[in-house]
Structure formats: structure tokens, C-alpha cells
């Protein structure tokens, strides 16, 4: 299970990360590709990371990792720049579903942006301009309760307004 989260602090050999759950999760400093005791990842409070949940027992704090099982980065790690928006976990699951969610397909046809979706309801977005980010963020939020046809109409309207303006 993947989660996009905000790093809180480095305590000892772990980072504490907020994953929008009741407790902060623990991300060991060595759970990054190519991390050693000399070569630690340079994360500060407020940074966003894309990690997977290694352990989520109800009695202990969740444990995250920024590598896959074999130790490679595989898309996990520090997400630089961009913005984070919060959505419901059901919308996050729709965005992560396969085939691709209609809102992402429709937006991707007209705009350039980078997206990381966490199952915990956090979505990281980066694009060339802030305006594109805002457009994509709003479109994603609006698509939660719409049918596919409604989503396509909405995105078409948004894209036409951008190209006109």
C-alpha cells in the first residue's frame, strides 16, 4: 500500500511522517535506495514522500519504506516541489484503479502534469505552471461523484476555457 505523506521530524534513526491517520508513521532513514549510515537522505519537516506501508499493526505505529522489497527506489522517495491535496480514500482508490480513471485520462490528453496518489487520500501534483496544478486539482476533486460522461464533459469544458483564455 502506497502513501504520500509529509515528513515531520528526524528522531534518532527514523523520520516521523504524517499519513493522515491517528498516529504518525515511522520511516527508517535507511529505507531509501542507496542509503547508508554515512549517506542519509536529506529530508526536512514539510517534505513530501511517497512510501509504501511495510507494517500496519493496530497496536504499533505504522512503519513505511521508500524502497520496494528488493531495495530499489521504484518510484518511492522524496517528491520535490509541487502541491499536495487531500481527498477521500475512495477517490484515491478510483484514481489508482485500472483502467485509468476517466478524469486522469481526459486531463492527460490536454495538459502536462506529474501525479502521485497515495491510498491514504493524499495526492501530490506537479506541473509547469501553478495554474495547471490548480486546474488539475480542482478537476480531480470535482470528479469524485460524477459519472464518466459527466467527467469527460467537465474536463472538455475546462480545457477549452484554458485554450481560449
Amino acid at each position, binding site marked *: 500500500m502506497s502513501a504520500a505523506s509529509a515528513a515531520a521530524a528526524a528522531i534518532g534513526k527514523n523520520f516521523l511522517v504524517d499519513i493522515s491517520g*491517528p*498516529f504518525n508513521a515511522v520511516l527508517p532513514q535507511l529505507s531509501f535506495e542507496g542509503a547508508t549510515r554515512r549517506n542519509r537522505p536529506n529530508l526536512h519537516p514539510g517534505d513530501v514522500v511517497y512510501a509504501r506501508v511495510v507494517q500496519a499493526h*493496530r497496536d504499533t505505529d505504522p512503519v513505511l519504506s521508500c524502497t520496494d522489497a528488493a531495495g530499489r527506489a521504484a518510484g518511492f522517495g522524496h517528491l520535490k516541489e509541487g502541491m499536495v491535496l487531500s481527498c477521500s480514500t475512495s477517490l484515491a482508490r478510483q484514481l489508482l484503479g485500472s483502467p485509468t480513471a476517466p478524469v486522469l485520462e481526459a486531463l492527460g490528453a490536454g495538459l502536462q502534469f506529474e501525479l502521485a496518489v497515495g491510498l491514504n487520500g493524499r495526492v501530490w501534483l506537479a506541473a509547469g505552471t501553478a495554474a495547471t496544478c490548480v486546474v488539475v486539482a480542482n478537476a480531480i476533486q470535482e470528479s469524485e461523484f*460524477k459519472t464518466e460522461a459527466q467527467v469527460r464533459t467537465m474536463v472538455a469544458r475546462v480545457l477549452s476555457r484554458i485554450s481560449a483564455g
Partner: protein
Amino acid sequence: MNAMLSVSGVPSVCAWTLVCERSVLDRADGSAKWSQEGSSVLAAVYGPRQAKVQKEDAERAIVEVVYKPRAGLQSNEDRSLEMEIRGVLEGVIPLGMHPRTSIMVVLQVLQEDGSVLPCALNAACAALVDAGVPMSSMYASVACALTADERLLLDPDAAEEQAAKARFCFTFPHHFDLVKAAEGEAVVSEGVLGSRSFGSFSTEHLLEAFQVCRLGCERVAQFARLSLTKSLQAIT
């Protein structure tokens, strides 16, 4: 999203209007405003979130209820209602799933015209569902008054409550039987989650009130399901 449903009477009650609005508050994890005739309660749920160290329980979540009356400060009666509501919630929430957390339910009475406790309980249930707090079942609550001439009135208003010999409030868990009907029929459990009574009454009165409230809960359960389904549908 609101869903308004007029329910036609069960024996010895007039039609009463139920309204439920969900996700009313932005900052709460879940919220709902439940109105029945003249009474209206706003419920907000915060949790499961980290509990205070003094209050946390290592093995289960703690349920905290705050019941705020429409006017004035909390009285002892309000604290007693908080205990009743907490008892009901501890009966439906699987507390062992979230150790060391707290689930806080804040209930604010907006309008009161009788039957405020069942209104508050129903609001709490809708808010818990809106927050996504796991529950073993939803529940419905109904009040009933025993008049001086030995009649049972469901959902009494303030005047009827004052004039009554005795008052009862029963809370039943309910589930839906998808086999029985295509729409899903509300099946109210035989067992009761919470019961609160006040006044002088005989055992027969209590058992009759139990049965009458159980029938009333079926209507509330149907309405709660309709309201929930409508709030989750795509807006067409």
C-alpha cells in the same frame, strides 16, 4: 445532501418528518444534522485520533461524548445523557480495532421539542457513518411516552412529554436483508442496544413500549438508508 421523507403512522402516532444532512461541517471527520419534527441535533465526530495519555487505553479506543444543550451550561441531566449515548456507541463500535485512540462525538442541540435523546442518537449514528468509523451495525432510536390514559405515543413532543406518566427511549441495531426485497428491507434486531426510562410504569407498559418502539425504529432505519444512499449517488 438532504433527504426528506414523511413517514406514515405506526399505531398511535401521527406522521413525523425526518431530515438528515450529512457532511455539514468541514473540519470534523464526520458530521450530520438530524431533525425530527421540532427537534434538531448537530453531531460531529472526531476520530479515531490520538487520545490524551491520561485517557488512552492500550487495548481499545475510548469513546468520548459531549452533549451540549440548546441553551445554558451542561447540567447533570446532560452528563447522564452523555453516559447513555456513550454506552450505545460502545455497543456498536469495535473498539479493539483502534487501540490508544479516541473517538469523540460532540452533539449540539439546535432545537428541542421533545424526543431529543433519540434525535441525538440518530445524529451520532449518521455522523459516525459519515466519518467512516467502523461499526458492527447501524442503529436507530425512537422515544415513546405513556400518557395518563394508558396510551403509548411514539415520538412525543415537549408538551406530550411533560404530561406523560412515563417516557421511554429505545435504541435498536438494524441491518438490511438484501434477500428479502430488491430495495433491501430494514430488519431491526430483536435485542436492544440502549433503553432509558423515566417515570412510573408497569412491566406490561415497558414491554409494550419496547414493541412499539421497535416498529418505529423500522421506519427510522428505512429513512436512514434512503438518506445515506442518496448522499452517495452521483449527482445527475
